[in-house]
């Protein structure tokens, strides 16, 4: 499969942006600059980008607690996101959401979500709206290997088939739910088959390879857009950090992380393929790297300089305030 230059450049830029955003967020958390619970997407970038590169702005996604990558891939403003993580009133959610609730309705981002498997039922609703409106949109929900065991995820999958809506269930198997391996938490031997048992096709991808995800997601999106009901993408991937920042990662095998960073890096893989096919040359990608680093630097500077929210904002964005109770 080969893509137009512009798209290749854009895909790489998106993955690199997510990578550097997350690495910088990690550093800023270590510096005590970012509060709250933050889950980093480093290592899984190709999944978000491979899917979202094929979505229109009007298509929707809904994400998880590990949402930065999905949001950036779907077009969220990086500076607005960084401001949000820093808790500024200029953040995407005015500092009220934070890492687990980054959202942007204009970009079709129905939000990161702090509740495991909170998203799939909502995505079915967005897909139902598309079906009723006959506007050709699709609704993508991202799930992890752990969230697929939550009742709401199963309900959403069956409901999507029953209502024959253009919902796409992307399952990113990074092998762990917090400290538990998928081999324990998913009782059956074949999660893809268990998922297909609900009555829709699931396309498998290598989550470390942008092109593999792009291809699988393409099939799923085509299936859904064509009015054939839901479809799934099942990608094997790995996260390069702990579940949360500070996770001792007792569950890792010796050398597991090094191996992941070495052999399952979507950026390395992308560059290797470009070198091989000659579609892009390294210099072009180096330029993107530099631009991305500058953007991230700029976003952090902006976030640090951004105004802080004030007390009276606490009771805004809600329909009533029972003051003086």
């Amino acid at each position, binding site marked *: 499969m080969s893509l137009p230059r512009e798209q290749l450049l854009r895909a790489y830029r998106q993955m690199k942006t997510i990578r550097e955003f997350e690495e910088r967020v990690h550093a800023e958390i270590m510096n005590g600059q970012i509060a709250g619970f933050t889950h980093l997407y480093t290592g899984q970038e190709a999944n978000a980008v491979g899917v979202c590169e094929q979505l229109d702005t009007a298509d929707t996604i809904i994400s998880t607690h590990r949402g930065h990558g999905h949001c950036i891939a779907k077009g969220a403003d990086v500076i607005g996101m960084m401001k949000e993580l820093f808790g500024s009133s200029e953040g995407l959610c005015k500092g009220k959401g934070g890492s687990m609730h980054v959202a942007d309705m204009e970009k079709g981002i129905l939000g990161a979500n702090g509740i495991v498997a909170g998203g799939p*039922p909502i995505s079915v*609703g967005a897909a139902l709206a598309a079906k009723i409106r006959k506007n050709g949109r699709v609704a993508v929900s991202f799930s992890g290997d752990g969230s697929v065991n939550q009742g709401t995820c199963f*309900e959403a999958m069956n409901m999507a088939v029953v209502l024959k809506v253009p919902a796409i269930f992307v399952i990113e198997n990074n092998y762990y739910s917090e400290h538990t391996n998928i081999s324990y938490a998913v009782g059956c031997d074949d999660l893809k088959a268990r998922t297909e048992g609900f009555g829709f096709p699931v396309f498998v991808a290598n989550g470390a390879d942008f092109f593999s995800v792009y291809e699988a997601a393409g099939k799923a999106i085509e299936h859904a857009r064509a009015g054939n009901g839901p479809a799934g993408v099942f990608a094997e991937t790995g996260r390069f950090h702990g579940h949360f920042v500070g996770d001792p990662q007792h569950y890792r095998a010796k050398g597991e992380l090094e191996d992941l960073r070495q052999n399952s890096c979507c950026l390395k893989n992308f560059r290797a393929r470009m070198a091989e096919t000659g579609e892009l040359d390294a210099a072009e990608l180096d330029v993107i790297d530099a631009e991305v680093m500058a953007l991230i630097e700029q976003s952090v500077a902006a976030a640090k300089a951004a105004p802080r929210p004030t007390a009276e904002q606490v009771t805004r*964005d809600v329909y009533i305030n029972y003051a003086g*109770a």
Partner: protein
Amino acid sequence: MPQKTMRDAINEALHQAMSEDDSVFVIGEDVAGCQGSPSGKVGEVGGVFGVTAGLYKAFGPDRCIDTPISESAIVGAAAGAALVGMRPVAEIMFADFVGVCMDQLVNQMGKFRYMFGGKSTCPAVIRFACGGGFSAAAQHSQSMYQVMTAFPGLKVVIPSNAYDAKGLLLQAIRDDDPVLFFEPKALYQAACEVPDEMYTIPFGQAAFVREGDNVTVVAFGQMVGRAAAAIDALEAEGISCDLIDPRTSSPLDEAAILESLEATGRLVVVDESPPRCGLTADIAGLAASKGFHSLKAPVQQVCAPHSPTPFSPELEAAYLPDVAKITAAIRATLA
């Protein structure tokens, strides 16, 4: 003016809202009925209480949507559709079933607007049949609206008559916040005058069902009628009461209650839910905090005891507040 039951009034509101606005649709278990059935009579059911009758025939399969028994997915579907501009009205058969879709209600739908910095709207309505009176026992008789009132971001409506039900539902559908609409199932057959045309009743505006001087009585849903009966009987003794039906437990019309209390100095609160962290305590607490200087006597809370709803008709009758208990409470505030 024509008499209509609460069931018919709600059904009419749904027909009118769906005709007016094609972004409105209903979704739930058997809201159409007979899907996939060999009889082919799809749409014959219209909900187990008949509230959505005729909607499938009038608006078709895309706007009257049956679902599997998956309440989290039903509420989620409504929430998601609303986030992208639809105005879904979902039916959850019994209020007790909030237990199986609580997260979608309180952590998702109810929090979007705030979590997202006020940049989203979620104009979804979730309808529930609530309350006791059917010997339906512990899992099919709860109010649940008092519990949902605790969650910021959700508006909570409890109509006590057919007229209010129509106007409040039309308001709920036009409202840009998620609204939980609790229909006391004991009142589906209760009729009153209901105009044919569309009208709305604003949220946070209590109704004065009776006006009087001696005692302020606040009652919700099914209990409004029982409170009115108690009050009317006491008229003969020269006891007159304000009867306030808040109609929406949140937003709550605190001013109406506090103004009445200022005039009467005595408060009785009636609800069919158990006592703890419920609406009788909530409004008694309002009086203690914001109406204290008006209070001349202890606030009387008339509610269910702290136990699940029993099955046996005799037990349920003793469990629910009735005219006698309300009457005794009104007398007690005057003692």
